[in-house]
């Protein structure tokens, strides 16, 4: 693959004509969706819009709309495939509430979005109109029924004869319509056509040149059609920052972060939504001396990573819920043998196979407590795509310094969400240093635990004089199998103490909002943007609410009880399941609660409430705002 940047800004394909003067809607932020059957390219249409908007200096948050099957039957609500792009003048930190404008390739995909309550009342709908007069009677009937269902919602529905228009340039508009639609969006949002063209060329770089050219023709056709037929434009003026930015999704960030951390082995077994990290690395890792090992299963992937790490190489393994489950036994071994290991869990909906392509934050307690026996380790969660990059450096360093297992909890929202962030300033210190191969001084033990910190210096194969046998059995500091009872108590303490030491190095979390007030919202992971947006809106309404976002879940960041004591009420907002407090048979005591709230209650003894949803989608700031409104000043949960 070429690493050359596509040439931008001076592309001669586009004409410089001025648009006519339609009504211009000025917006600080605006959300657009493009949906089609899978294979029709709504995905790339949305992606290009997002990327180009980011390049133009807009804040952007892109979310994939993915069906559960590879190519489900056409024209079916459950098959909707596409992208949602939220564009802002300033930074956009989350997917927002509802869509302002949707481009739909058929009315069934559109219906799916409507039924999922994804569309703003009064939203603009650009719908491919070919189905209205389709030869197939059944299709015509479906169209009418759909229009009726949509009619009640007060959308502004605009028919787009995309198919018909595209026929002028291509025999099979199913394969080019997305470029036509992209043209419409280009015109509507006044996107830089040179940047758009460059993106298209990049996308088709492995195909015959004519493909890109025809796509650009279709794009122009869309632009022209919009110019002539649409009476409005949307302006979301970028507020250019002064920092270099990059734009990518969370899985790409994890992959690049792993490289920046000097990782040398990624052992994995395919699983949605984690797999694309390995696709990304598959392309580039070898150039950095790294190996992507697709193992026969998740257990083997964990084993290979542990083996490599034991041999002095920095290794991580990446998976999602079902794979985390399978790796459980090996995680216990990593803890017991104090072999550094980073595991990235890109969470999806559970339990079991659950919702493989959808977001959830319900692996938290399994990540912390899932391993039989006492297995102290570290659990971290990046909250933004930028953090997905940097967390890999942090995780690797903690793993090595503390000879620890570090679990990183990303999720499907971060994995597929695309967002610009400041370009990382790479630092050589981030890269793992070469393994120690110097001789081991006589008498030194492979677990010479420092009594105060539990820390010790590991021996790496190749070090003369360091020969010893790592074991998952209880062992003493020479790694000899323990036969007396106090060794187990002592070595358990040593493994636990390291975590306390790490905890002491952490700073208390900082607050978003005032230091005290009516309500404190606590979150973790990918919900940060939505929570902070909701808090900002609530504060604008005069509500006394702040929020706090945790990166370290094990050990927890210090000072929480003290912070919580300054608020009338504390509650978590999470994408995992909790009983409704007023559900049948649910009492204040037996209520099954959000996973973080449960953790916080045990640690702080504060009556931390929770509001959680498992809708298979990111939380909407508007919904969180509702929660804030009804909990501000409402006091404790009892």
């Amino acid at each position, binding site marked *: 693959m070429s*690493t050359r*940047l596509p040439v931008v800004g001076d592309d001669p394909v586009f004409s410089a004509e001025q648009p006519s003067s339609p009504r211009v809607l000025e917006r600080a932020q605006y959300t657009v969706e493009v949906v089609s059957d899978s294979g029709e390219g709504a995905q790339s249409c949305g992606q290009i819009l997002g990327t180009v908007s980011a390049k133009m200096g807009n804040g952007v948050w892109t979310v994939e709309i993915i069906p559960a099957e590879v190519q489900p039957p056409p024209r079916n609500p459950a098959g909707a495939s596409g992208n949602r792009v939220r564009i802002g003048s300033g930074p956009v930190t989350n997917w927002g509430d509802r869509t302002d404008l949707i481009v739909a390739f058929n009315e069934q995909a559109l219906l799916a979005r409507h039924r999922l309550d994804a569309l703003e009342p009064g939203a603009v709908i650009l719908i491919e109109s070919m189905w209205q007069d389709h030869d197939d009677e059944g299709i015509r009937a479906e169209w009418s029924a759909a229009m009726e269902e949509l009619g009640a919602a007060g959308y502004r529905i605009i028919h787009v004869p995309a198919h018909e228009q595209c026929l002028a340039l291509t025999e099979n508009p199913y394969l080019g319509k997305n470029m036509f639609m992209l043209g419409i969006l280009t015109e509507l949002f006044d996107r830089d056509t040179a940047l758009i063209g460059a993106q298209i060329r990049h996308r088709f770089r492995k195909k015959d040149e004519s493909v890109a050219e025809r796509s650009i023709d279709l794009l122009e056709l869309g632009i022209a059609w919009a110019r002539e037929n649409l009476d409005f434009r949307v302006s979301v003026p970028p507020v250019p920052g002064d920092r*270099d*930015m*990059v*734009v*990518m999704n969370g899985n*790409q960030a994890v992959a*690049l972060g792993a*490289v920046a951390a*000097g990782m*040398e*082995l990624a*052992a994995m077994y395919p699983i949605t939504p984690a797999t694309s990290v390995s696709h990304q690395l598959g392309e*580039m890792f*070898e*150039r*950095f*001396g*790294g*190996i992507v*090992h697709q*193992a*026969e299963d998740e*257990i*083997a992937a*964990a*084993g*290979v990573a*542990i*083996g*490599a*790490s*034991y*041999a*002095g*190489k920095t290794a991580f393994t990446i998976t999602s819920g079902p794979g985390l489950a399978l790796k459980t*036994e*090996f995680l216990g*071994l990593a803890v017991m043998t104090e072999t550094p290991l980073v595991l990235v869990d890109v969470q999806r909906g559970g339990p079991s196979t659950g919702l493989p392509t959808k977001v959830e934050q319900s692996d938290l307690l399994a990540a912390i407590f899932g391993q039989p026996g006492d297995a102290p380790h570290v659990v971290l969660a990046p909250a933004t795509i930028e953090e997905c990059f940097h967390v890999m450096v942090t995780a690797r360093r903690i793993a090595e310094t503390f000879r620890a297992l570090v679990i990183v909890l990303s999720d499907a929202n971060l994995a597929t969400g695309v967002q610009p962030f400041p*370009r*990382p300033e*790479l630092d*050589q210190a981030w*890269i793992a240093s*070469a393994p120690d*191969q110097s001789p081991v001084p006589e008498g030194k033990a492979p677990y010479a635990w420092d009594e105060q910190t539990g820390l010790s210096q590991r021996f790496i*194969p*190749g*070090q*003369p004089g*360091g*020969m*010893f*046998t*790592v*074991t*998952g*059995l209880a062992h003493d500091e020479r790694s000899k*199998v323990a036969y007396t009872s106090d060794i187990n108590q002592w070595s358990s303490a040593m493994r636990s103490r390291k975590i306390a030491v790490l905890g002491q190095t952490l700073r208390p979390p900082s607050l978003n909002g005032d230091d005290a007030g009516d309500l404190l919202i606590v979150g973790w992971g990918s919900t940060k943007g939505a929570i902070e947006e909701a808090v900002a809106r609530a504060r604008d309404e005069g509500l006394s609410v702040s929020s706090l976002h945790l990166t370290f879940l094990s050990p927890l960041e210090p000072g929480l009880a003290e912070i919580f004591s300054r608020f009338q009420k504390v509650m978590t907002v999470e994408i995992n399941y909790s009983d409704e407090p007023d559900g049948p048979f649910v009492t204040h005591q037996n209520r099954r609660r959000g996973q973080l709230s449960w953790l916080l209650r045990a640690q702080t003894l504060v009556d931390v409430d929770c509001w959680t949803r498992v809708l298979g989608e990111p939380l909407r700031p508007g919904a969180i705002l509702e929660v804030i409104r009804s909990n501000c000043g409402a006091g404790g949960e009892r």
Partner: protein
Amino acid sequence: MSAVCSLFQLHDESREYGMGDYEGAQARWCPGCGDHSVLSATQRLLARENLPPEKTVFVSGIGCSSRFPHYINTYGFHGVHGRALPVATGVKLHRPDLHVFVVMGDGDCISIGAGHWIHAIRYNVDMVALLLDNEIYGLTKMQTSPTTPQGYVTNTQPRGSYLPPMNPIEATLGVTNASFVAQTAEWVPAHMLATMEAAYRHPGFSFVRILQRCPHFTDDLFGELPKHPERVQLLVHEHGIDLEALEGRFPNRLAHDPADLDEARRLAEDASVIRLGVFFRDDSRPRYEETRHLPAYTAPEKLELLERELDRYAV
């Protein structure tokens, strides 16, 4: 071997190691357990090949046999039950300078570890895999293993083991990319040593099934065999194993060219006699670890490359 690896190669090539250099903790196997003799043969092999203890890694799972690494003075990894092969693969993938040996029991390798076993054969990563096959679960006290003979009474199948035993040699030979498959017996130390040596020298994954006595639980399985050399047939060949020393003791010998896969399978299948020797070997099979071409950039060079990578995402 790339420059990265040269980092790992600084050792005193001139040093000569003796058996004593490989002595680990006192072995805690039962008296008469065949594992003891595997241990001695292994130490002898290491001495013969003059492998620096710090460059040698023994990886095992869990079981009587898997205690092995504790008793030999090299680096050792006594991991979890059934998963020695993935760990060993991880060790070797990035560290071609290390000599990797894997020690597994029959339950460990063939029951819980079966998936890894099949795939390790296929990956063909350069290491020696020793299956210490006592045809029983030793450490957990006498449960049926996949290699337990049909009808043999165990604690979980007290009316006699239900099924014909799995034949590890036959199964290994069925896996595409198998490259070295041999069988030996711990009560014929010279043959065992020669087999291990051939395995060690084979470039790729060498699978050696070692018939192993467990006097504590299954003395009736192999216990009498040392006295009955006639029930053993040696496979002999210049590309396999051919020990003149054994000629007198084991009159039953068959010339078998390890290049002949079909014949190897036929021989493996036939259970009428216990065959020891190299069933199959092909030194030219592709090895997984060789499929990667890893440049050896310095940290600054890597950063530079990564900057170029980031450029692709630049806004």
